[in-house]
Structure formats: C-alpha cells, structure tokens
C-alpha cells in the first residue's frame, strides 16, 4: 500500500484499457479462455466481499455459482425465457439462496459455517443428478450462448468477452463504493471486533445477511454468465462441485486485497496453471489446486495478511465475555512500545 492514490488510479486505468484491448489481438480460442478467467474473477470478487469484509470463509460458493448457472440454463432451455431475463433470474436465485444461508450465518461462524457451506457444496451435484430430467445430470445441459447483436462488427467470442468484462467492472465498482461507504466501515468493524462494533451502533444481523446475500448474488451472476458463455453445464463441471469453491478460495488467496487486480490475477493463475498441468492428467489439476492453496497459506503469510486472514491476536481480545473466573489463563498485560530507561528505586 505504499504507492500513492494517483499512481494506483493510473495503474487501474491502464489495466482496464489492457482488458478492453485484449480480444482484439488474440485468436478466438484464447479469447474464450480469457472470458472464462473473467467469469471466475467475478465469482472471486463475490467471495472476497464476504471474506474480505467479515472475515468469514464460505466453502459453499460453488453451490451459488451452480444455482446461478442452472436457473439461467434451465429457464432458457426448458421455459424459453429470454436470455437477459434468465440471467437476472439466475443471479437473483443465487442471491436468495445466499440470503437464506445468511440467516444461519448470524449464529454459525468459523469452522461451523465451513461445515454448513461444505455440505451445501456437496449437496448441489447430488440435487442436480436427482433432477436429471430437467438438469441433464452428469450428461449435462446445452445452453444457447450469447451471440453478437445484429450488424455488430464483433465476433461471437469477442461479444461474450465484453459482456463478461462489463459485468466484472460493474461488480468491482460496486464493491469499491461499498468499501468507502459507512456500511463498508461498519462491516470491517464487525469483522474485527464484534462487541466493540455493536457498542458503536453496528447492527450485526442486517449487515451479515446483507453481505452474505450480496456475495452470493455476485457469484451466482458469474455462474449465469458461465452458462451463456461456455454453452454447456453439467453436474460434474468442476465449478459446480467442491473443486469450484477451492478454485475461488485459491484465487482469493493468490489475489489478495486489491479490488480489481486481485480477483483477476488470482483467477488467471488459478485457471491457467492447473490447465497446463491437466494436459497430462485431469486429476493432477485438482491435486495442484489443493497443494497450491496449502502451500500459499503456509509459506506466504504476507500475502495472506493482506487478505485479512489475520493472525490470531497474540494477546487475547478484551475479556468482556462472561468469564469472571476464566479457565484459560489470560494475561492482562498490554502492549506498549516504549524504550526509555528509568532508574530503579532501591530501598534498604
């Protein structure tokens, strides 16, 4: 965070410009691959909203991604709903599912929330194969893809790229504005120290449900866009399974705090590296995700601290919790960083 504000703004403008120019210089196969990276970046931005602001980890975002993708796909294929309306419906469905999970997340935190979201992630493929008549199960569902508007000079792959890029920029702008708002401050305070935050008027309930819903809405939007840009979804598509959650988490850890560059860089590395590896064998890609994630978390504490995977307080939080006779010893020494020596008084 050493660079100044204008420098950062210029860097972001250059990044956006580069993103806009990319499809003009690459062959369709590459543009399609980049589109997929942008889709993942949106999903990661969604997860970052939850983890970055509240310090909660969700292992279930693959399910919100899947809900977005399947509601969109099924509405288009089986109900003939126009694509734009289907994307909106898919996005909102993921948001509603997220709000429903936001309610338990008021009380379920940390490891317990991870259990719930893990089981949620494990449930989606099971549900998809149970309703395989509609969803296609493991056989999958072919979804019509976004096509260029009539008379456009853009090719199909370029059109899809720009739609997803537009969505990503809108999402990042929204998160940026939230970050600078009063609500953003309240969210950070809540993530840091709930009791102190409440003492200063922060209302955890609304904020937690809201942020969970917003986070899953964004990730569901990524899923919806995935359906209409890739054109094929199935219950074994890795983003719909727990592997998807791992990809999002890995990208989040790689990317760190920067709002636009973070998800992009994370998504690019998380997508491209295993793709290289999986040319030899697809199982190696999954292994690589897990191994990269573990290695990053163990070896690069600096990159993680920027993610707000903060170190556990080395001296305990204020013991304002009901513990008149605490079982665990809590030193009530506090810190100070003074160094001036003072003469010792000696008596006797």
């Amino acid at each position, binding site marked *: 965070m050493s660079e100044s504000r204008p420098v950062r703004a210029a860097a972001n403008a250059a990044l956006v410009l580069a993103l806009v120019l990319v499809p003009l210089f690459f062959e369709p196969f590459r543009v399609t691959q980049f589109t997929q990276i942008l889709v993942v970046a949106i999903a990661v931005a969604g997860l970052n909203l939850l983890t970055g602001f509240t310090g909660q980890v969700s292992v279930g975002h693959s399910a919100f991604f899947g809900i977005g993708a399947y509601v969109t796909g099924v509405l288009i294929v089986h109900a003939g709903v126009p694509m734009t309306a289907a994307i909106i419906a898919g996005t909102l469905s993921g948001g509603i599912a997220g709000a429903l999970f936001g309610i338990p997340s008021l009380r379920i935190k940390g490891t317990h929330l991870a259990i719930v979201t893990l089981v949620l992630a494990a449930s989606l493929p099971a549900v998809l194969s149970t309703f395989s008549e509609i969803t296609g199960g493991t056989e999958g569902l072919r979804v019509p893809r976004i096509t260029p508007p009539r008379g456009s000079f853009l090719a199909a792959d370029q059109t899809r790229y720009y739609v997803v890029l537009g969505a990503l920029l809108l999402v990042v702008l929204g998160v940026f504005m939230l970050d600078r708002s009063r609500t953003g401050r309240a969210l950070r305070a809540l993530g840091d120290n709930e009791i102190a935050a409440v003492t200063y008027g922060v209302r955890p309930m609304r904020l937690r449900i809201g942020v969970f819903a917003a986070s899953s809405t964004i990730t569901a939007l990524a899923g919806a866009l995935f359906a209409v840009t890739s054109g094929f979804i199935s219950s074994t598509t890795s983003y719909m399974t727990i592997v998807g959650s791992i990809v999002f988490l890995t990208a989040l850890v790689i990317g760190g705090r920067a709002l636009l560059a973070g998800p992009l860089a994370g998504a690019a590395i998380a997508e491209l590296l295993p793709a290289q590896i999986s040319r030899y064998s697809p199982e190696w890609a999954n292994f690589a995700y897990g191994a990269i994630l573990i290695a990053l978390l163990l070896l690069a504490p600096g990159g993680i601290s920027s993610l707000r995977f903060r170190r556990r307080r*080395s001296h305990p939080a204020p013991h304002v919790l009901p513990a008149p*006779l605490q079982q*665990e010893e809590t030193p009530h*020494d506090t810190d100070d960083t003074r160094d001036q020596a003072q003469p010792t008084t000696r008596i006797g």
Partner: protein
Amino acid sequence: MPLVPLLDVDNLHARYGQARVLHGVSLTVSPGEVVVLLGANGAGKTTLLRAITGHVERTGSIKFAGTDITRASPAAIVSLGLVQVPEGRGTFADLTVQENLRLGAYTRRVTAAALALEISEIVERFPILGERAGQRAGLLSGGEQQMLAIGRALLARPRLLVLDEPSLGLAPTVTRAVFDTLRELHDEQGLSLLVVEQNADLSLGIADRAYVLEAGEIQVDGPAAAIRDDAGLRRAYLGY
C-alpha cells in the same frame, strides 16, 4: 543472602507478536526465599511469569539452579522444578480432582504406586481434595480450585513455586487460608516462592523481598518490610 540465586533473570525482554511488554527486567530468587512481584494491572507481571516459565517469546538470560532455561520448553522447565500456578488457577475443569492431581506429576517418571502415595500426602494437607476426588474439578469452589492447583503443582516436585494472583476472585477469608498454606509450605519444606499479587499487604506479609513493576520495567526493589512501611512509595506505585 546466598551467593548463587535459585532463579536469576537478567535483562529480560518479552513480546506478544509486535507488542513489547517487558523492557529489560532483572530479578533473582534465592533458595528458600519468598519474593513478591507487585504492580498495577497491565504492568507486565503475568507476562514476566509467563516468560520465566517459557510461555512467551523472550530474549535475555534466565538461569534456574545454574541451568540456562532461556530457550527451554515449558515441559523441560517444569521438570527442572520451576513450577507455575497460573492466574485463574488453570485446573482442568472437565477432569476429576484425582486426574488433575495425577497430571501434576506428568513430567516425572514415577510408578503408579509411588504416585498414589504422594497423592495421599497431598490429600492429607488438603483434605477437601480427598472428599472431592471423583468430582469434576470445574465443580469445586474458587478456593478449592486454588488448593487443587497448588496441590497439583506440588506433585511436580517444585524447587520454586511461581503463583500468579492466588487471591483472584476469592473471598478475604479464603485468600487468608491460601496464604497461610503458602507460608506453611515455605516454613516446613523450605520451598521458594515467587508470587504476583494485587493484595499488597497480605503478600508483603509473607515475603522476604519485593519488586514493583511498572509498564514493563522494575521500578522498585527491596526488602518487603521496607516497602510495606514506605507510605509515599505505596501511594505512587501501588495506588494505596
């Protein structure tokens, strides 16, 4: 005063992560001596004890009975005979009183029969622990838990017993009983004691010497009686 102290702390610095808490503390405890450590909340008393017993990042020099323990593990320090009774007593609430006592001898190699004999000696000193042997320690009263914590520490065969606020949360009569016990242990067995305590008069009453800690540095040290009688000093550093 004997020439070789039992505990010799020299220029000790300690920190919790980024926060430095102790800035070059030196103190000694001689064999058979009772030393009390006074100071306001947040002065670093607990950190000092935790640094001595190996629970905090520390630099400087700590020698115990001639052995350098600056880098020793907590378990190694306990087995040398430097045993702590932590603040809030640190009993194992879910385990029985009997099991708590057995854990006291964890670092020692001792047969089951010998351990049973030692436990019965402890129970003789603290009869209430015998009555409650099969109960969960969490169900004991504060005073009983303090007795259990001391009893458990004795089973580690301490040469120096370090106590952190033994009076915390106890009624005045119970506090008095705890200090009577400590005095007995000192008188009968010649046990050395290092005590952190809020209750200045009571602890100064059993101590040979005292140190006053403020903001991570020793401000005052001297004979307990002198500190007890110096009203100006008490007002300045002990708040009363």
